[in-house]
């Protein structure tokens, strides 16, 4: 009777949840396996910036265009967990002013609506901003609630009968012959019991852990966990997102969220993303740099300090200049291994389009002809992740 | 499983560990409520002696003047005063007034309650 293709997604971060939603809409039977709770890894720990693309419009215009398109889309489909704050890019010295020309033309190219504001206009909008500001641009940034964005996608998937198994840790794969994945072995972390889930296709959406998971199938995926530190302060010092008008750097962004302000972020590399110690020197440095944008921050107590391991793609070459767009590996093509796809990289803002592109590939493999519908539909209430009876 | 809300967990209502003043108010209110309801029923039953004539009633009053019973009576009076004054706090906060000052209100009312209980106690015991 049941002829729906059965897909297992490993990881319930932004990517996993958005992908589960997309695939259920296209008529797949979806099971999501997650070793912790929803968005407990990198997704939960983002700084919550809904990118307008302004941060990439000079260095990576492909990413920037994607950001602004998804920004506009998410405002429509996931209004429930987005603060429509808007953002400012502010120039404070000569080099910032030099950068501003690249910024303005880049923004125009990418289709990001910006508006030049004078010092007086900026101070009037945001009285706490440093008086050293020279001029700036307004930009349609926003902030979102990380957990609730993921839950919005998950809830929409659940409404369409996707099944989420949280606290189910993948411990191995059942491989048919030499090169076909046919089932996933998991441990139910509540009961300690071992279970096997059969599937037609398994998608590894574990982000910074993608390398570890694919290793279980004997496959190498070049993903590098690249943690950054973020600090949240117990006061909303500005109403809008404040960016420094310069090349993206550590501690150059202040994101208001609820009653807090979050500043981000640094960037370094680690081997294992399970536990990343917090370096106090980095926190101190970030604090100083953010206080340059909003001096008031020096006097505001910190509320939370946390590390988040972004998944950066690309072997051993390091650092920030790597493209932040996502990568999708069909291991049939790269390793001759059937039934296994890895998706990693990307940003929260673009999680929907990542899911769309991955679902395109997956559906082609599975012979499903349905088209993506996630652009048009408003997401379900995130509360419905826990189904209403 | 563990921690699920269940009606048999009612003893936890009266567990003030790690809790703040509001819980004490709640606990006092609930204990006095139950105590006073039980007393109310007993009181009415006992008063049937009034209908049985002077001997029955006055012998009961003589019994009621024994210290042990008087102490019990003091508990009832104390309970009524505490429940009544705490009720004032619950009422005014329930209509949306003084909610943020519920602690000082509670302290103030309990000081009054303490004074009133002392007054009644002094009066009753001094006349034994």
């Amino acid at each position: 009777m049941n002829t729906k293709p059965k897909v297992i997604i490993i990881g319930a971060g932004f990517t996993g949840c958005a992908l589960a939603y997309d695939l259920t809409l296209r008529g797949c039977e979806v099971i999501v396996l997650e070793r912790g709770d929803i968005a407990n890894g990198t997704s939960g720990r983002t700084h919550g910036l809904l990118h307008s693309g302004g941060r990439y419009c000079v260095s990576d215009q492909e990413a920037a265009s994607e950001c602004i398109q998804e920004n506009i889309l998410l405002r429509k489909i996931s209004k429930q967990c987005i603060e429509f704050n808007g953002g400012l890019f502010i120039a404070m010295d000569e080099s910032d002013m030099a950068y501003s020309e690249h910024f303005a033309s880049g923004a125009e190219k990418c289709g990001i609506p910006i508006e030049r504001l004078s010092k007086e206009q900026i101070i009037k909008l945001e009285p706490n901003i440093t008086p050293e500001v020279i001029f700036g641009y307004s930009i349609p940034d926003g902030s979102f609630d990380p957990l609730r964005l993921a839950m919005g996608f998950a809830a929409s998937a659940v409404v369409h009968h996707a099944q989420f198994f949280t606290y189910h840790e993948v411990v191995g794969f059942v491989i048919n012959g030499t090169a076909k994945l046919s089932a996933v072995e998991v441990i139910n972390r509540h009961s300690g019991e071992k279970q096997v889930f059969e599937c037609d296709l398994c998608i590894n959406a574990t982000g910074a852990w993608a390398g570890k998971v694919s290793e279980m199938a004997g496959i190498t995926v070049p993903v590098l966990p690249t943690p950054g530190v973020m600090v949240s302060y117990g006061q909303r010092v500005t109403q809008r997102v404040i960016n420094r008008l310069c090349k993206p750097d550590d501690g150059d962004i202040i994101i208001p969220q609820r009653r807090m302000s979050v500043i981000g972020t640094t960037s370094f590399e680690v081997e294992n993303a399970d536990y990343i110690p917090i370096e106090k020197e980095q926190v101190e440095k970030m604090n100083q740099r953010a206080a340059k944008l909003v001096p008031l921050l020096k006097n505001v107590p910190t509320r939370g300090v946390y590390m988040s391991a972004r998944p950066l793609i690309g072997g051993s070459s390091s650092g920030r200049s790597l493209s932040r767009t996502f990568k999708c590996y069909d291991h049939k093509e790269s390793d001759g291994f059937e039934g296994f796809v890895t998706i990693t990289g990307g940003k929260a803002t673009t999680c929907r389009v990542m899911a769309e592109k991955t679902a395109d590939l997956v559906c082609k493999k599975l012979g499903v002809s349905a088209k993506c519908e996630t652009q048009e539909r408003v997401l379900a209430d995130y509360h419905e992740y826990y189904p209403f009876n | 499983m563990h921690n699920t809300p269940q009606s048999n967990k009612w003893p936890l209502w009266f567990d003030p560990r790690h809790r703040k003043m509001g819980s004490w108010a709640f606990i006092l209110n609930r204990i006095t409520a139950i105590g006073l309801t039980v007393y109310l029923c007993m009181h009415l039953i006992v008063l049937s002696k009034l209908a049985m004539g002077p001997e029955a009633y006055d012998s009961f009053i003589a019994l009621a003047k024994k210290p042990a019973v008087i102490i019990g009576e003091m508990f009832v009076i104390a309970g009524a005063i505490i429940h009544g004054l705490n009720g004032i706090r619950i009422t005014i906060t329930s209509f949306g007034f003084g909610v943020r000052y519920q602690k000082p209100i509670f302290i103030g009312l309990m000081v009054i309650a303490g004074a009133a209980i002392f007054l009644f106690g002094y009066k009753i015991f001094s006349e034994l």
Partner: protein
Amino acid sequence: MLIRTGPKNRENFWLWFTKIAAGFLIIFLLGIHLIVNHLIVPGGLLSYRQVLAYYQIPFIPIMEVFFLIIVFTHSFIGVRSIILDLNPSKRVLSIVDVALVSVAFIFIVYGTWLVIVVYQLGRL
């Protein structure tokens, strides 16, 4: 999203408000009751004769009956509220309701009868 179409409302504003209002009246009446019984009368408790005389004051029997009714109203709505905290099933609550109403009714009838008896004894 639809709001729960679960069981019917079992405690509404008017019931709660009755409890609060009755509570307030009790504070006044019980104040009088306590002061009369324990502070004014020397010795603290009334003798049989005193009680009978007390009930000859015109409004006292009426006040006592009124007091009886509101005390039972307040305390039994309160008891019901405590039972509601225990999330009783529909069946249990309907048994509780019948029990509370009949006990209160019996006590009120009995109390009223007692007041009338005491009043008449006093007139003799």
